[in-house]
C-alpha cells in the first residue's frame, strides 16, 4: 500500500517518471507497428545507398502532389552490372517484400539513360519470368520512345503486379531502333554510375482501418 499521488483517471498509483517513459516507449512501438500493419520491426537486409535513396526521393518530390491515404513503394533494381551497361537486353530484378494487397493505380519504371548517339530509339519492357512453367517466358508490358537522356519515367500497366506472389519482379529491356537510325538503339546505355540505380515506384490506395466500410457522415 505505497502512499503517493494517484492517477486522476483510474485511481491507481501514478508511475514514476522513468516507469512512465518506459511505458510510453513501449506504447509507441505497438502503435507504430499497428499503424504500419507490421507484426514486428523489419530487419533490413540491404538498405539502398543513401545517395541512391536521396536521388530517387528528389525525383519523386518534384513530381507529385502529396496525397493522403496512399501507400507509395520505391524498389531499387538489384545491382545491374558495371556503371553503364547497354540498356538493350538488361534484366532488372526487383524484390517487393509483401505482395501488394490492393490493385496498384500507378506504376513507373525510372531509368537513367545516356544514349551515346542521337536518335529516338524505343525501349520495350517485357515481364520476364516463369509463366506457364516456361523459364524466361516474356510478356510485353509497354513500349516507350526515348527522346531525352537522363531520367525517364516509363509507365507500366496496373496488371504488371499480377502473379507476383513471390514478390520478385523481373523486367527485360529490349531496344528497337527508330526507323532509319539502326545504330542508335545499340548504344542506348543504362547509366547506373553516380548512384543512378533504376527504381520502380508503385502507388496503391491505403487500406482504411475496418476494411472498406463506407465512412459514416
Amino acid at each position, binding site marked *: 500500500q505505497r502512499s503517493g*499521488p494517484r*492517477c*486522476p*483517471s483510474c485511481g491507481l498509483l501514478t508511475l514514476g517518471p522513468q516507469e512512465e517513459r518506459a511505458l*510510453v*516507449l513501449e*506504447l*509507441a*512501438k505497438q*502503435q*507504430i507497428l499497428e*499503424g*504500419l500493419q507490421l507484426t514486428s*520491426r*523489419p*530487419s*533490413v*537486409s*540491404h*538498405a*539502398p545507398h543513401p545517395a541512391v*535513396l536521396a536521388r*530517387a*526521393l528528389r525525383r519523386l518530390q518534384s513530381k507529385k502532389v*502529396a496525397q*493522403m*491515404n*496512399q*501507400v*507509395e*513503394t*520505391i*524498389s*531499387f533494381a538489384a545491382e545491374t552490372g558495371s556503371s553503364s551497361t547497354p540498356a538493350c537486353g538488361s534484366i532488372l530484378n526487383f*524484390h*517487393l*517484400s*509483401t505482395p501488394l494487397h490492393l490493385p496498384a493505380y500507378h506504376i513507373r519504371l525510372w531509368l537513367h539513360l545516356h544514349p551515346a548517339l542521337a536518335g529516338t530509339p524505343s525501349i520495350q519492357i517485357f515481364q520476364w519470368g516463369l509463366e506457364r512453367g516456361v523459364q524466361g517466358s516474356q510478356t510485353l508490358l509497354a513500349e516507350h520512345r526515348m527522346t531525352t537522356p537522363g531520367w525517364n519515367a516509363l509507365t507500366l500497366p496496373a496488371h504488371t503486379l499480377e502473379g507476383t506472389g513471390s*514478390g520478385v519482379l523481373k523486367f527485360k529491356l529490349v531496344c528497337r531502333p527508330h526507323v532509319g537510325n539502326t545504330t542508335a538503339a545499340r548504344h542506348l546505355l543504362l547509366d547506373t554510375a553516380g548512384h543512378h540505380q533504376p527504381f520502380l515506384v508503385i502507388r496503391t490506395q*491505403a487500406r*482504411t*482501418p475496418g476494411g472498406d466500410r463506407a465512412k459514416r457522415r
Partner: protein
Amino acid sequence: TPTCEPGSLLCCKRNHYVDFQELGWQDWILQPEGYQLNYCSGQCPPHLAGSPGITASFHSAVFNLLKANSPWPSGPSCCVPTARRPLSILYLDQSGNVVKTDVPDMVVEACGCS
C-alpha cells in the same frame, strides 16, 4: 483542451514526444525523426460530461446545460480523444524497399469528456 499540468485532475491531454532514436528504430524509419505520442487522462465530473474539448459546438453547449441542470447524472463520462491527425511515415521494409504511408488517427490533438 488543456495540456496536463503536474497534478491536474480534470480531463486534459498529456504530451509525450517519442524520438525514434530512443526506440533504436532510426535505422529503418527514415522520416520523421519522431512523433507526438499524446494521450488523454483526467476526470470528467458531470458538469464536464459531453464537453468535447476543442470540438465544442452550440449543440454541445445546450446539451451540457440540460445535463448540468438535470437531477439525474448520466452514466460515467470518460476523458477520450476528440481530435486526431494522421502521421506520414517513410520507412525501409524487409527487402530494403522504401515505403511511404500515411497512418490515420496517429496523433491525439484534443481530448474531451464522452
